[in-house]
């Protein structure tokens, strides 16, 4: 089971800004990328104008392996927004690079999700103009 949408309601998609543009451009190309500091190599998410370790402003958008584990998760039994059909789960994935990303799972029931589960990224074309990085169970 994957996330179900009420397509007559627009999915909330806050606009892109300079700091996160590269992330969403990557998703359009079916690539999961995160900010990485060019000076010290620190992976950064959510994006920042500076590296919090070395304060460099020089960063690049570097590809993630897309593999990680479930760090935490919740299941909405009642929907807080008309575009999402409850029940649905939201997961916090810890990628191999050490950054964490809020996302959803595909092809799994909420009760089958557990902390520590190995997952990998997939790209979900939820509407014509919106692709979202989601995750599926590995193995």
């Amino acid at each position, binding site marked *: 089971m994957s996330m179900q949408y009420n397509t007559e309601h627009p999915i*909330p998609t806050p606009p892109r*800004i300079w700091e996160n543009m590269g992330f969403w451009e990557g998703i359009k190309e079916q690539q999961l990328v995160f900010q990485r500091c060019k000076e010290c190599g620190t992976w950064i998410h*959510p994006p920042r104008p500076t590296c919090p370790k070395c304060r460099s402003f020089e960063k690049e958008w570097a590809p993630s392996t897309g593999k990680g584990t479930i760090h*935490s998760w919740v299941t909405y039994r*009642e929907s807080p927004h008309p575009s999402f059909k409850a029940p649905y789960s939201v997961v916090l994935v810890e990628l191999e690079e050490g950054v964490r990303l809020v996302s959803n799972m595909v092809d799994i029931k909420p009760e089958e999700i557990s902390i520590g589960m190995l997952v990998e990224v997939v790209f979900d074309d939820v509407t014509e103009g919106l692709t979202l990085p989601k995750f599926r169970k590995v193995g």
Partner: protein
Amino acid sequence: MNSISNKAAIVGVGVSGFSKDSGRTELRMTCECIKAALDDAGLVPLDIDGIVKHTDDASDEHSVTSSMGMGNLTYFGESRWDSAPCSMVLRAAIGVATGVANYVVLYRAVNGSSRRRMMPSMRASGQMSTSDLLQWTYHAPFGLMSEAGRVAMIVRRYMHEYGINSDQFGWVTTVCREHGAKNPNGMFYNEPITIKDYLESKVIVDPLRVMDCHEEADSAVALVVTTVERAKNLRQKPVYILGATQSQLSETEEKNSYYRPVISGLPEMGHMGKRLFAMAGVGPKDIKVAQLDDSYAPLVPMQLEELGFCGRGEGVAFCEGGDRIRVGGELALNTSGGSLGEGYLYGMNHVVEAVRQIGGTSTAQVKDADLVLVATGAGGPASGLILGGSR
């Protein structure tokens, strides 16, 4: 420690009570509460030369000043986030202690039940700050659209790391409702619950039940703060600010600090608490009554751990059965009922209840309560107070 300790006191309190529909504007409730707080203190509007408000409050200082005929302001400013109640008292104390102002009023008025609160997600995107955008871009499209859901993510990890079952959080709500049932000012007067009611309440965002979540309300509070010297000549026995401090750390986010190595704690509370106790010159063992942030029940055991009332991972056991956290227990919690058992005013009612305990006028009075700790802002920027009846 160079500090604000023992320089200022709370000398007046005005409250609107709690309801599902106040039937009036936030501005009107603010003015009613300020008038009541000034009467309580024995002051008049022209005595007031400072205002501290919440950034998100609907009543700005211009309309409040004009409505109340307070023509003499020399100090005004704001606090933000859910930690604002204790932060606003700190701002007020700083104002009077430095002599920038003599009498500062601080307030919060929210029609949180009758008027749906504005969430950043609901705002036109053009009005969202860069900080909000960076958060919401990564949360909203995935349906993480409510504060309860954001908190639930932290709670799940806390449960996982310490082997906690979500049923165990029920004692927090049960005790808050027991205390709230004695409070005619609150929304649950004469409506206590049992642990069974909690266990039967529906899950809204797993692992949180509806009874883990604060009760939306329309309510307002105003407080007056002045120097300890001026406080001596006023109508009420002063409630001294013995400690007041805040905490914000790297990777602190409001209710969604997901991006730091450990997400199962409330490190801002720990950071704030250490400074707070040092400032007041007391320790957790000296505190017999505390008003903690119970906007979501599981945040209470987490605060008990961070503030040093018990060890790491022991907060739930501390609350189990309720005896240690009821009036009469070793640490009476949220004696007005708090956000779960009185109503939600973002913790402003917690400060009021601390004042009442010290004045001996609580509806769930702890015997000889002379020292009360208040904590606001669990799961984000934190702030705290230690208030005392003697210096």
